[in-house]
């Protein structure tokens, strides 16, 4: 027992030193964490966010910063793995981040959010679309600039029933956190809309061949195939289906609304539907954001760039309007103050979802995504 007492004393002492250290560091600059997959196979989803944050911060710092202080970015990689995200989050907390932009994947976000919540750090994700991150109400510190998956599934079901007049559907997914979640929501909303789900199955990602599952889908004769997952498996399945002379309509979520999908599936991608964030290419801020990226990096921005750009703008704006980095004040500012972003004018509802953004249905026509009205 004596030993335990001694430890307890040590623990308390260290606790005080740690808090003292982190508050001392916070005085110089406003530290903003950026977390997501910056390496590994999902890096192409995470790196655009870093670029977006860098560009926004550069601009704001050039015009005097926030609350008269310069903004400093702390980028940390989580490889989209939940177990790594915990380390990433603690690193950001101990480095003194005040707000965090991220994480990119829902699973990693879930595992990191508890740590941010305990440390009173506001987290704003450009891409984590798992519904219960906001809907469960467990994380009052969480905000996002992307609509969650349930919205997406509703859009899909509505479009399929009203425009495409679909009566039977087969739902496939990649067994992953994101893909299976999407597929389950699709199952729910399609059933509610009176569509018969003839098949609901997961395929093994990375398998060398999908002919068995394609044969099975074919035998069930659905009018529509809904895909929950990312684009690599989707393009394999679509390619194989078309090669086997199957012309069933194929529809996926924002996981396949990526130019790589069109590039890889080539001619077979024609006619595929995908839901994705509403088209913002006419928004002047979005055009400007894209141009900034092209000037700085010499290439077109990648996935979730606009969402990340908007997230950075929104959070920095909220700190400015709140007049301090105090947690409650910033949360209040996020919920009450409108901000102009590439996604349009947004603020956040009580649960943390951005108002004024949503999903549209796109169809691939002549090698490009065309928004369907």
């Amino acid at each position: 027992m004596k030993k335990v007492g001694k430890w307890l004393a040590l623990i308390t002492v260290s606790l005080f030193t740690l808090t003292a250290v982190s508050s001392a560091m916070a005085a110089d600059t406003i530290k903003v964490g950026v977390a997501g997959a910056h390496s590994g196979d999902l890096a192409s989803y995470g790196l655009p966010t870093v670029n977006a944050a860098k560009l926004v911060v550069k601009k704001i710092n050039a015009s005097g910063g926030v609350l008269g202080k310069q903004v400093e970015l702390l980028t940390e990689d989580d490889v989209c793995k939940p177990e790594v995200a915990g380390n990433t989050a603690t690193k950001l907390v101990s480095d003194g981040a005040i707000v965090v932009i991220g994480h990119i994947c829902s699973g990693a976000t879930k595992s990191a959010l508890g740590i941010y919540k305990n440390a009173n750090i506001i987290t704003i994700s450009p891409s984590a679309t798992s519904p219960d991150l906001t809907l469960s109400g467990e994380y009052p510190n969480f905000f996002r600039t992307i609509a969650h998956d349930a919205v997406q599934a509703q859009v899909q079901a509505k479009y399929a029933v009203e425009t495409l007049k679909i009566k039977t559907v087969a739902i496939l997914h990649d067994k992953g956190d994101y893909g299976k979640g999407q597929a389950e929501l699709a199952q729910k909303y399609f059933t509610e809309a009176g569509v018969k789900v003839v098949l609901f199955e997961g395929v093994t990602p990375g398998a060398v061949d999908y002919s068995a599952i394609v044969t099975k889908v074919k035998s069930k004769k659905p009018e529509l195939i809904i895909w929950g997952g990312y684009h690599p498996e989707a393009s394999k399945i679509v390619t194989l289906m078309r090669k086997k002379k199957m012309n069933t309509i194929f529809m996926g979520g924002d996981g396949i609304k990526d130019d790589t999908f069109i590039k890889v599936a080539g001619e077979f991608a024609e006619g595929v539907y995908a839901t994705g964030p509403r088209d913002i290419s006419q928004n002047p801020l979005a055009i400007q954001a894209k141009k900034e990226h092209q000037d700085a990096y010499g290439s077109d921005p990648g996935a979730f760039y606009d969402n990340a750009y908007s997230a950075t703008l929104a959070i920095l704006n909220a700190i400015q309007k709140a007049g301090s980095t105090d947690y409650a004040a910033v949360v209040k500012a996020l919920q009450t103050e409108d901000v102009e972003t590439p996604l349009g004018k947004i603020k956040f509802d009580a649960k943390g979802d951005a108002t004024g953004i949503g999903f549209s249905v796109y169809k691939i026509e002549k090698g490009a995504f065309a928004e369907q009205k």
Partner: protein
Amino acid sequence: MTAKHEIRKSIIASIWFMFLTFPIMVIKVNTVTNTIEWRWYNMALVGIGIFFLSMLWRYLLKKKEEGGKKEKKAGLSLIQRLLQEKQFALPGMVIIAVITIIFPHIFSMYQTNIMISALIFVMLGLGLNIVIGLAGLLVLGYAAFFAVGAYAYALLNLHYGVGFWIALPIGGILAALFGILLGYPVLRLRGDYLAIVTLGFGEIIRLVLENWNEFSFGPSGIKNIPKPGFFGIELSMQATTIYIFYIVVLLVVFTIFVINRLKNSRIGRAWTALKDDEIASQAMGIDKAKTKLRAFALGSTWAGMAGVVFAAKTTFINPASFTLWESVIILCTVVLGGMGSIAGVIAGALLLILLPEYMRDFGEFRMITFGAVLILMMIFRPGGMIEDVRKTYKFEK
């Protein structure tokens, strides 16, 4: 053997590698714009780099060969001798103990967190060491037992509110049961056949967890797993981290103690005998089935307990944390450290888990470096960093 000869060999090597890396290093095709980027500077880099590397390579190999002869005469390496000297043992242990106790207080929470992960892998490594290092059974699905422990805690807590301290032994026992369940049918298999069946077993556990939503909540995992309680007091996040750190340290110490006792016990010697020669040891009256099953059960117990700690530490688990890759990493820690040697496995686990974390500065180059380190370590120290020293009994007239 002249310098001229050496240079010629190096030039041949560098030309060969320039040829080898030509399509992948030099050509980059942009399929969108249909243009080819020729990166000749890469070829020059490879050529020059390989020229010197090949010299270094041959020099080191030669040295290793000579060293190998010498070492046999000299007997034990420096570290091994240090470990055996009684007069260094006590002060060494005190220093290590002091460092561990003050570690979380002088380093940041991030460092402590990484250290917790590393120590969890030390536990896993030591557990697998029982199965591979002592009993010689090649298991490639060790992460499955890790998963059993983690899910045991998460699910028991979710449904019945079971706390960390009760879940810890339950997780261990459940994993042991799974170990026996796996061990029983594979008693007859040897070597690589055993490896592939255990690999399959590991994948089965992961895939079931991934697909059986009603039971394990599928790929979306279980979140909000409580951290261990401290006599009912709510601790802040920093304090909990430090608290978990001490729990893991204690568990590791306990593991070391148990394995050290096991190694020279009756079972331990039976394992070594079975590893060396199955038939001979059976002839000496060792019950093969019982001994092997004990190895499986005892080995998995640690994985189960490590799983419980892991779940409590990350507070969120999903099947993605228990893939084949994790099993492979644990295997690497054991072999890289030195099979059968406790100090070796600890060193291996710390190295393999801490290296990629601290190599974050290398950014995109960290995994390729990691791969190269694995190869080089094995070539220059095939027995592992700290080789196991077997107890020898001398017959004196």
